[in-house]
């Protein structure tokens, strides 16, 4: 499990994350990180990945401190996928995944994936047909799936994704979220993703963290913490939760709050 205690990150004098603690993020669960622009979501994710410059506090993964661990140690336990899609380079999909598995692997050849493992993963994700295509000829959605494969080939315990849906159409949004949930459950991953769409969080994730101004405002099951009051406090919007004809909860936004802060 992942525990965050008194995490603080500052850029210069500006404190982006302030004294943030999260009790437990459990394996097998996809956690949504929600909050307005500039609230510190991406910084929090980077800090968890060990990519923030001067983090204070403590982050433990299965009891092991990862905040100040060496790059190599962290890379063995976690993968962070930045918001950008894999660069459009002249590499075949298959190669790019092989590279992701090989690149940071320290010394021992045992931890390196072989070509059959790469192929098996591609099949699992339903993108084996893309194997020999070049990255620079894929659509945004296909690239995101390849990016996910690059992460999963490293068999991480902690998977951190920064807005994986931002460039995707509706079909791929569902596709990516389904795969994430399936992989997270099957391989006992702790998955944390930054999301903008509260409905997707409500529908596809098992846990939600709501952040504003670098502070944790709510922490719990999405259905419980995404409330009209929370929407007003976090995003400054007037919203309600309705249940559709199939019983699925749906966030409807009616407008902006009168006085925003």
């Amino acid at each position, binding site marked *: 499990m992942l525990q965050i205690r008194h995490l603080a990150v500052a850029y210069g004098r500006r404190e982006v994350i302030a004294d943030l603690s999260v009790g437990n993020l459990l394996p097998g669960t996809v956690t949504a990180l929600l909050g307005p622009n500039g609230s510190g979501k991406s910084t929090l994710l980077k800090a968890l990945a060990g990519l923030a410059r001067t983090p204070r506090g403590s982050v433990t993964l299965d009891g092991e401190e990862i905040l100040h661990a060496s790059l190599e140690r962290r*890379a063995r336990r976690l993968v962070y996928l930045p918001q950008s899609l894999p660069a459009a380079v002249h590499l075949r999909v298959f190669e790019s995944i092989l590279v992701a598995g090989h690149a940071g692997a320290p010394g021992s050849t045992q931890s390196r994936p072989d070509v059959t493992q790469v192929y098996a993963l591609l099949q699992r994700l339903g993108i084996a047909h893309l194997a020999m295509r070049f990255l620079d000829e894929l659509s945004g959605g296909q690239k995101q799936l390849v990016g996910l494969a690059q992460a999963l080939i490293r068999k991480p315990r902690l998977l951190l994704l920064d807005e994986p849906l931002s460039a995707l159409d509706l079909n791929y949004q569902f596709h990516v979220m389904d795969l994430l949930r399936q992989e997270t459950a099957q391989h006992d991953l702790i998955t944390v993703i930054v999301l903008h769409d509260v409905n997707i969080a409500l529908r596809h994730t098992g846990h939600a963290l709501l952040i504003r101004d670098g502070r944790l405002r709510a922490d719990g099951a999405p259905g419980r913490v995404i409330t009209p009051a929370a929407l007003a406090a976090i995003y400054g919007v007037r919203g309600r939760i309705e249940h559709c004809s199939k019983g699925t909860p749906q966030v409807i936004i009616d407008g902006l709050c009168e006085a925003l802060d």
Partner: protein
Amino acid sequence: MNEPLKAYRRILLARSLLLLLLLGVIGTALLVDIMTGVSGLTSGDIVATLLSPEEASPVTRVIVWDVRLPYALMAMAVGVALGLAGAEMQTILNNPLASPFTLGLSSAAALGASLALVFNIGIPGVPESWVVAGNAFVFAMLSALMLDLVARWSGMNASGVVLFGIAMVFSFNALVSLVQFMASAEALQGLVFWTMGSLSRATWPTVGALLVAFALILPFSMRDSWRLTAMRLGEDRAASFGIDVKRVRLAALLRISLLSALAVAFVGTIGFIGLVAPHIARRLFGEDHRFYLPGSALVGGVILSLASIASKSIQPGLTLPVGIVTSLVGIPFFLAIVFRRRMQ
């Protein structure tokens, strides 16, 4: 079933064969290069002299062993050195316009050479015949060190490094112009000739130095090949895979500096190879650096060997500076590759 796996293995095999083929082309080009010239020697004479030098006449021996061979080997050595340096540079700076010359290394070398040629300013203790090359090398390395300092200071931001390199190009070019302005007519001629890039300065010690440096550096490049490939996927992503991006970049910068400083010190400015060889190699081999790096080196060697042959053949009896020929011969190839890609 497993069709992609078979396809991938076929691709790996094809790439290995292509590397071998390029090696063969370089060997052939080397031979042709040695045979090309105006001495009136037949191919048979030359082969015989190569195989058993002690039986050849002294004049033939000197022509083949002290002129033709170092000249041809230097063409190949400079080509492979610049090909490798350019390939690594385009990767670590994530910029298809990067080459050892974009960063001002050659301009710095030219400034060093000009100080020696015009004002006889050299490093104390360096033998007369090495003063120009010595100056060029020291200046190129100094500019590389400056680049390295800026890179560290600015947190290794790739675009910042490129911009600083361009600033250096202009500064050093201005200083070279200043030196030219102050030079005597005779010294000016020498300087202009130096900047054109010529293989005729090749000697056994310089060829040897460059080949040894290349042989020592290539294994280090190959050891980083997976990491360099991963960096093509994006820096954040590479860092997340456990790659120390800054360390990889600094190590590459050091290798690039050494290779290109040596090359430019020995033969002057030959700017085109480091830019173009990586582009051609990328088309031929893709961006798996296990193949792309040696591929780019070999392509560089082939281009410069062919350019060397051309520089002796265009106007019989006259050897044009190879720097000029390289650009003139290489540019059509380059454009063909770029536009063919656009058409697809």
